[in-house]
């Protein structure tokens, strides 16, 4: 029995372990909606992956990274506020992805799986690429941790002190796009942002250093994966939403009962 859920469990744990620290940066930088836009555009990545017969995860990473770049460029303009711009990009790319997927006659796509994840269909070969990607993200994050933290504190000060802001932000967006690609598998396009920001938000009250907050966020997320898969197994509920529900409950409990620790 356990062999059936083991790859799903491991992929879920890998995702939430790395989503903890990345999600903290999303929360610190008030980038929740930005993450949402990357996640929604992932569906377009899947569609293009099918269309050009590419590896789907590479399609997702490529499209999400391009969207991130386009947003960075477009946020320089003054005509439309950036939240409006993010909304247009998020839903425009999501709609385009949905239309393209429905137009494809050769492949039958499980739309619900794309939107809400299909974790239980995870195989051991998925585990391999997810593991590789998580190692890549973790190593890169280790090397850009301090400059990234400096940018989160204040971008202008960081830049004046010589932090290569453009390069570090670019790498961070690439990491975020990679997490989105893994998240597509686990929780689907609509719930990826939840996996990034809910554990991070839950960890805030329990942490007094940035690193502690990142670790607690990982722990909360991993706990949510175990509980969510348990719930899914017992009650036959969809795995992705079950995990996000457990994370939300954890946030609620911590928010209500924990006493705030300040630095």
């Amino acid at each position, binding site marked *: 029995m356990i062999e059936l859920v083991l790859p799903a469990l491991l992929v879920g744990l890998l995702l939430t372990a790395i989503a903890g620290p990345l999600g903290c940066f999303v929360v610190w930088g008030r980038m929740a909606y930005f993450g949402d836009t990357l996640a929604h555009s992932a569906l377009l990545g899947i569609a293009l992956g099918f269309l050009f017969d590419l590896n789907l995860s590479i399609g997702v990473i490529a499209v999400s990274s391009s969207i991130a770049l386009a947003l960075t460029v477009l946020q320089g303009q003054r005509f439309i506020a950036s939240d409006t711009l993010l909304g247009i990009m998020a839903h425009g790319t999501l709609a385009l992805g949905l239309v393209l997927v429905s137009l494809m006659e050769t492949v039958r796509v499980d739309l619900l799986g794309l939107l809400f994840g299909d974790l239980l269909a995870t195989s051991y070969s998925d585990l391999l690429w997810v593991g590789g990607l998580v190692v890549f993200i973790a190593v890169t994050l280790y090397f850009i941790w301090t400059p990234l933290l400096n940018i*989160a504190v204040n971008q202008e000060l960081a830049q004046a002190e010589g932090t290569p802001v453009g390069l570090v932000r670019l790498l961070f967006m690439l990491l975020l796009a990679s997490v989105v690609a893994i998240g597509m598998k686990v929780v689907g396009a609509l719930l990826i942002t939840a996996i990034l920001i809910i554990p991070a938000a839950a960890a805030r009250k329990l942490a007094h250093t*940035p690193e502690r907050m990142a670790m607690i966020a990982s722990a909360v997320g991993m706990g949510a994966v175990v509980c969510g898969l348990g719930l899914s197994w017992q009650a036959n509920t969809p795995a992705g939403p079950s995990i996000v529900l457990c994370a939300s409950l954890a946030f609620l409990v911590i928010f209500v009962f924990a006493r705030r620790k300040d*630095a």
Partner: protein
Amino acid sequence: MTQEFLSQDTLVSLHDVGLDFKSRQVLNQISFNVHRREILTVIGPNGAGKSCLLKVILGLYQPTRGECKRAPGLKIGYMPQKLTVDASLPLSVERFLTLANNGNTGPVDNVLQRVGARSLRHSAVQSLSGGEFQRVLLARALLREPDLLVLDEPAQGVDLQGQQALYHLLAQLRDEQDFAILMVSHDLHFVMAQTDQVLCLNQHVCCSGTAESVSKHPEYLNLFTNNEVDDIAIYTHNHDHHHDLHGHVVEEHTHSEGGCKHD
């Protein structure tokens, strides 16, 4: 403090610098040098482009015209006017400081004591008052062992007493650590007494020169009951032109462009 790039005395050199935003001229024809150990104060009305000038020198903005040269390897300590750290980021003063010097906690105690903020070492940065955060920002700039300290309106929101104390501290620090100071002030008449050069800015350099010491002005001396006036000086403007309501130079002599001779 003796580094070979300081052998020539010029730290920053601006030559004919101009800056446009959306075809609006913010800075025009600005030329001056910042020398080693020099204290330079930039004054000017609101909207004169003072902060933009600082950002050009810090390398945050590229000049549209002319050039801004920095001595190779120049280390700049920057103290922004104010800085807010997102409440979701758990950060102590100590951690905030060591983000600027690769996590070296060794000199933290010393530098905090120097700026009179030793008791704040373990406080959360979000819990600091404006004045406290300002001292912490100065400490962070000092930790970088700068050749040039750049301060954006350090006296804003501080009362006269606090301003004197700050100027006194800056003068002491300059004598101890041999850095140059470039600061911006919105106050048109009071500058730090040790200021070697005052630059009056209103998109271009209106006038520049040395500050006369307060002690030479008996009428201003009468304003003070004790001897704490040594840290503030009066700058007497010596303009050869006037500005209209929009800040444009009113043509009243034969110079065609800029219409301004400054020395």
